[in-house]
């Protein structure tokens, strides 16, 4: 039994290797890109739209709305990153219903990669919005004493993101394997259904947390622009 699809080595050449995680990710990428391409190939801007386009629009509008609800004013700028996070994790979880499939998110390497991308994206978006100085100042809030805690928080939340997703995805696979050994046939199916739900919830949690982090990075700048806040900082 494999704990992670990383252990499923298909091809190896010294340092470079092709394992199950990478293969499954490619499959997912192909499915996502080809599906999107097929649907968006004949997008119409009229009142009447195809069902597939309608579905795609619902997904995009839904993601957009979630981002805006968190407090980001221009979700279009961040939808590529946050939307892809959600779609990738969500589709990776949904794939579990296909026999022989192994979710790439069940590998700590994948979740770590996703968490790392969030870890990089949050300051990147913050700097893009506020400038380097403006962003770095947010680490000194509310006082300079908080600087180490802010840095620890930044690192720990990245680690938490990676571990949370990995734990949830891996546990699903693990529980399934154990239950198959103990009570075959019916019960594992119920657990798999539950696993699908957990997967979607995790996709939502992961991307909404990333959104909150980005929103927080952006907001620290906008708060600074407030005249009263500005005064307080000067006096402080």
């Amino acid at each position, binding site marked *: 039994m494999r704990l992670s699809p990383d252990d499923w080595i298909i091809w190896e050449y010294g340092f470079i290797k092709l394992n199950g995680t*990478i293969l499954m990710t490619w499959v997912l990428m192909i499915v*996502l*890109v080809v599906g999107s391409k097929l649907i*968006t190939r004949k997008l119409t801007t009229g009142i009447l739209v195809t069902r597939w386009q309608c579905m795609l629009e619902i997904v995009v509008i839904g993601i957009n709305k979630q981002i805006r609800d968190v407090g980001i004013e221009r979700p279009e700028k961040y939808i590529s990153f946050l939307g892809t996070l959600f779609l990738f994790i969500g589709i990776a979880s949904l794939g579990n219903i296909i026999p022989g499939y192994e979710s790439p998110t069940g590998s700590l390497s*994948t979740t770590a990669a*996703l968490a790392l991308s969030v870890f990089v994206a949050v300051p990147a978006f913050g700097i893009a919005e506020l400038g380097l100085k403006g962003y770095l100042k947010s680490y000194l809030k509310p006082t300079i004493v908080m600087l180490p805690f802010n840095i620890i928080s930044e690192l720990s939340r990245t680690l938490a993101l990676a571990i949370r997703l990995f734990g949830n995805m891996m546990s699903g696979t693990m529980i399934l394997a154990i239950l198959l050994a103990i009570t075959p046939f019916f019960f594992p199916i119920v657990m798999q259904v539950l696993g699908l739900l957990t997967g979607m919830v995790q996709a939502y949690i992961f991307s909404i947390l990333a959104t909150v982090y980005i929103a927080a990075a952006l907001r620290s700048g906008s708060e600074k622009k407030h005249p009263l806040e500005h005064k307080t900082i000067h006096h402080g």
Partner: protein
Amino acid sequence: MLIDWFTVIAQLINFIILIWLLKRFLYKPVLKALDDRENLIAQKIRDADTKMADADKALETYQEKNMTIERERMSMLNQAKEAAKTKHDELINEAKKESDRLRSTLRKSLAIEQQRLGGEIMNRAAAEVFAVARKTLKDLASIEVEEQMVALFIERLRNPDDKERAEMKQAFGSPREQVAVQSAFEISEGLQARIKDAIKESTGGEVQINFVFAPGLINGIELTVDGYKVSWNISAYLSDLETSVIETLRHNAVVIERDQKDQTGDKNGNQ
């Protein structure tokens, strides 16, 4: 070791590529389509608003026009009614005048007819009465009516009233005067002698007398001398008859007129 760093890096790259691909093939086109649709709908709503405003304006214009037309129609209708009423009154007046004229013409012609009829009746009646009287007298008393007529004439010559007597004397004063006795019938010798005698007796002198047969004189006998005239005819008898006949005719005329008036009244009432 749960984390394989090569896989981590590979997945990072994969994820970045996926972000780029999805941005290229999913978010951009869909968001663009959404924006386009939004713009299209906004444009359509704007167009619809413009059209609605135009339509409202057009409607207002048409309503105004309609009202103007309605007002004109009403005024024209009123004018037409007025004109029709005037024309109606004119026609009625003309008809009344015409009817009055016709009525007066009818009345005149009726009067003329009445007069003509009266004269004719008089003539006919005189002739008839004379014929009847002659026949009756002859049949009942074997008396010639002419003879009796002459007798009456003589009686009148003999016993004139005072005024007549004076006039007669004055008329017969000149002996050269010719005395003419005209009659509608031939006077026999005997009767001529009796008339001569009577004149002689009245005037107390011989007179030359011309006896003239004048059929135009209706059943009478007449003596003329120097403008003076003594006559007897049956006109006195006929005057009663005439009066009676004229009365009857007048009565008929009144009835006819009343009937006409009733008919005119009915017509007016029906209108």
